[in-house]
Structure formats: C-alpha cells, structure tokens
C-alpha cells in the first residue's frame, strides 16, 4: 500500500479559528494550496510544511505524519 502524508491541518486551523484564506496569507500561498494540502491532494515541500507548522504553533511532526 502506498504511503501518504497525512495531516491535522484542518483541525488545528479550526482550533485557532482561522479560515483557509487567512492561513494562506500567513504562509504566503493561495487558498487553493492550503486546501489541496488539507485534503491530501498535494504534498507540500519541506519549506511550506515548516511555514504551516510555524503558523499553526506546532512542530512539523505534530502537523504531518506518514500513513501506510
């Protein structure tokens, strides 16, 4: 079974009361990119993963993990 990068972006974003657009603006991407990362459609680069984790006040490992 192929591995995929799972995340808790949506839950954490909701906890902080942020919209996709607001999070996108914080990390300097479009809402589309945040949306595709949230849905697992797009695997972000290490740079973007770090930026997202920082914006959401988590470590990269807390925000992303590999799922089999």
């Amino acid at each position: 079974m192929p591995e995929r990068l799972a995340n808790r972006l949506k839950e954490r974003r909701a906890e902080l009361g942020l919209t996709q657009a607001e999070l996108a603006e914080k990390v300097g991407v479009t809402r589309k990119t945040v949306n595709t990362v949230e849905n697992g459609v797009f695997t972000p680069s290490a740079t973007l993963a770090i930026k997202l984790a920082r914006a959401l006040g988590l470590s990269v490992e807390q925000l992303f993990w590999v799922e089999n």
Partner: protein
Amino acid sequence: MNAFTIGLLVGLGVVLVIAAIAKWRTRNKPMSVAEKAEFLSKRRARMLPALAVIFLSQQATFFSQMTGGEHVSAEKAKISAWLVLSALMLFALATKGFWFERKEVRDLIDDENTQANRNEAMRLGFLLAMGAAIAVYTLTMFDPTVTAREAVHIVMSFGIAAAILRWGVLERRAHRDA
C-alpha cells in the same frame, strides 16, 4: 503584405484586446493581493480547458489541406494566428503568466501547488510531443510526402494542447476541492 503577416498581426491584436478586456473588467474591484490572486487563479482554471479546445479547433484549417492542396489567403491568416496562440500558450506555460499584473500578485498566483501542476502539465506535454514526433517519423517511412512544416505543426499541436488541457484539469481539481 501577405496573408501570413496579416494572420500574425490579427493574432497579436486579438491577444492585446483580450488582455485589455480582462484588465478593464477588474478595474473597479478593490482587492487585496491574496484576493486578486485567488480571483485570477480561478479564472485561469476556467479558461485553460476552453483555450485548449479553441487551439485544437484551429487545427482543422491546417489539416484540411494536408493532402497537398494550396491554402487560400484566409487559411494562411488563420495558420499564422495559430502560431501566435501557440507561442502565447507556450510562454504562459513556461512563465507565471498574467504579465500585466503586479509582481506580488504574479508571485502568489504561481505558488507551490500551481508550480507543481504546471510542471506536471509540461511533463505530459513533452511526452505527448515526443510520442507525436515518433508517430510522424514512422509515418514518413510509409508516406514521404509529409512536409517538415506539417510534422512540426502536429508535434506542436499535441504537445501544447495536452499540456494546457492537463494544467487546466489540475487547476480546476485543486479549486473544486475548496
């Protein structure tokens, strides 16, 4: 001035008119950089598949004369206009597009996900162009009347149309999930 030159000028004129209309339509909409990037990105996702269809439909003129007949002036003009559209689409694929927008907007539109989609589209376009080249090369072994111009036209058509269509599909999918 011959028909090919007229076609080139008409193609350039149409491109400039479309750019002016697009700019004019957003003149009174005060938007932040992020809003504008979102707006333009969605518009691009809608436009790309339509552009690919228009691009492919233009091929009918060219291929209708592939059997060796002469193009009439109007057809020559259309072929030149096709050349402008080809160059434009190739340039849009290779760069960020939206050349008349501010740099911040252009940078944001071409974010990580868009770059990934664009790269995937170019990969497919390249593969199909090479596939078309192999097919044409094979064809010339049996039918040596295929000219270099016709061969280039086929390779370009396959490569560019496939890349534009793929990019459009990927962008629409990314927006649809929103």
